[in-house]
């Protein structure tokens, strides 16, 4: 079986600093994959290279059998990769519904004149985006907030809206960057269930960066551990928990 997402020898240097060094990753369709590591290990940098935000200094990223490096973020999104951000990046002045609708923008098959002249195609497209957005807001439990400006959402809901927006792009793979950060225990449990539903019901492969070990160990089937830009372990939650290198990276080695 070919991997949905595969990186090979992925490396990036900022000035003299090698932030990610020879990183290999293979995610199969249908995986719920965890990427963990101490702060500053380079996890978000990996996301940035996968989604076209950063150009790797060396190595390759393949998605669905296609070479991704060198593509613009929007082109990567069109292939079916979406993501959320560690520091939430919503469109604050748009409503919750409109935020989710922007995710569906990339599949619009109309041009500006359709919208300026309000053709039937325009209305069909608006309906499609609205339906899609509502569906995902319902899925994330946000439908009763649809009309609110995004900036008025409480923190936990902002994280969820980011996921809804990312899902609206109809991705094959969604990369979640610390979705549970700042959530309380109850919200985290709810989020765990949602992430599982994303994979099981929406059939979207999930790549998850998370600091909350309980959450990661509880839902991921495969986990890869990154430290100082290098992979130090790969395996099931069971294997990772008992790996001495991982324990050292998290506890010692100050």
């Amino acid at each position, binding site marked *: 079986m070919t991997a949905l997402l595969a990186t090979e020898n992925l490396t990036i240097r*900022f000035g003299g600093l090698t932030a990610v060094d020879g990183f290999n990753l293979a995610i199969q369709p249908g995986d719920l994959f965890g990427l963990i590591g101490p702060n500053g290990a380079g996890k*978000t940098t990996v996301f*940035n290279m996968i989604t076209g*935000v*950063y150009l790797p200094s060396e190595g390759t990223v393949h998605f669905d059998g296609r070479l991704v490096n060198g593509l613009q973020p929007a082109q990567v999104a069109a292939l079916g990769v979406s993501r959320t*951000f560690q520091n939430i990046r919503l469109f604050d002045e748009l409503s919750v519904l409109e935020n989710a609708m922007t995710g569906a923008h990339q599949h619009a098959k109309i041009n500006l004149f359709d919208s300026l002249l309000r053709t039937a195609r325009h209305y069909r497209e608006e309906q499609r985006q609205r339906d899609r957005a509502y569906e995902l807001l319902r899925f994330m439990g946000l439908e009763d907030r649809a009309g609110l400006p995004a900036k008025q959402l409480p923190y936990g809901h902002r994280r969820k809206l980011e996921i809804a927006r990312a899902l609206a792009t109809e991705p094959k793979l969604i990369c979640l960057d610390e979705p549970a950060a700042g959530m309380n225990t109850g919200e985290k449990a709810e989020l765990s269930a949602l992430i599982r539903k994303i994979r099981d019901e929406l059939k979207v492969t999930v790549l998850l960066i998370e600091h909350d070990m309980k959450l990661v160990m509880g839902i991921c089937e495969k986990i890869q551990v990154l430290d100082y830009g290098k992979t130090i372990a790969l395996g099931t939650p069971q294997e990772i928990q008992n790996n001495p290198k991982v324990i050292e990276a998290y506890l010692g080695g100050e």
Partner: protein
Amino acid sequence: MQILLDNADFASRMLQQVANGLTKGSVYALVAVGYTMVYGVLALINFAHSDVYMLGAYFAYYPARWLGYMPDTAEKPKAPFWLMGMAFLGAMAACAFIGALIERLAYRPLRNASRLAALITAIGVSIFLQNVGQMAFGADPKSFPRYVDQSSVNLGVISVGNTSILIIVVAFLMMAALHLFVQKTRTGAAMRACAHDMKTARLMGINVDATISITFALGSAMAAVGGILVAMDQPRLTPTMGLLMGLKAFVAAVLGGIGSIPGAALGGILLGVAESLVGGLWDTTYAEAVSFVVLIVVLLVKPSGLLGRAGREKV
């Protein structure tokens, strides 16, 4: 075509234009320093800088007029040397004060606002000063007093005005002094620290507000010198005389690499020479477009300028 065939004449014409360009460019450089320092610290295009330049020229005009050296009359008696010295120092001090005041009143309240708001405010201050200038000085052009008698100095194939030499020498002395100040003194080090990272500078115990005020004051004093120098060469003052100068000096700062004082000097000189060559060999009205073409090309090809550093966005 005839010109091109006549090589010796062509070469001397080129040389003459280079000399004119050096003169123009020194002033661009002097004014550019103010833009580059402020941009380095606040990431703000201080549009009002060009009007401080205009004020500098007027501030050196009035003392001579009040003391009876009748600059706007036909006879125009020569003003004494000590008065010129006083005019320079007085205008520099007054402009330094005004520059710092503009920062204090208009820009400081907006330090944490969007850069767009700050930019629009800067444009507003510029328009304000131009029109207050018009109210205070009148819209009709004023003739700058006779501080020096213009003459030309023959340097082989070309001749250069004594005011041109004065401009080049004074401009470069000022910039060298400023560069030394920024590199060697404690205050200069504080300015560099603020330009590098204002938050950290504050944590290190640097008085950021005072440092920014000094930055504006120094830049404005340089602009005042620029204004006086230009007025000595072309003794015609108007409240809008800063507009084009400001745009060109800013282009010079961008060309040299914004934030860098040697960059501003280099950018100013290159721009001045390029303008003179286009004006002298082609058409003077096209010379006015040179700086804007240079600007757009630099921004597209190397936005960090010749001597600047590139930054990157953190995700």
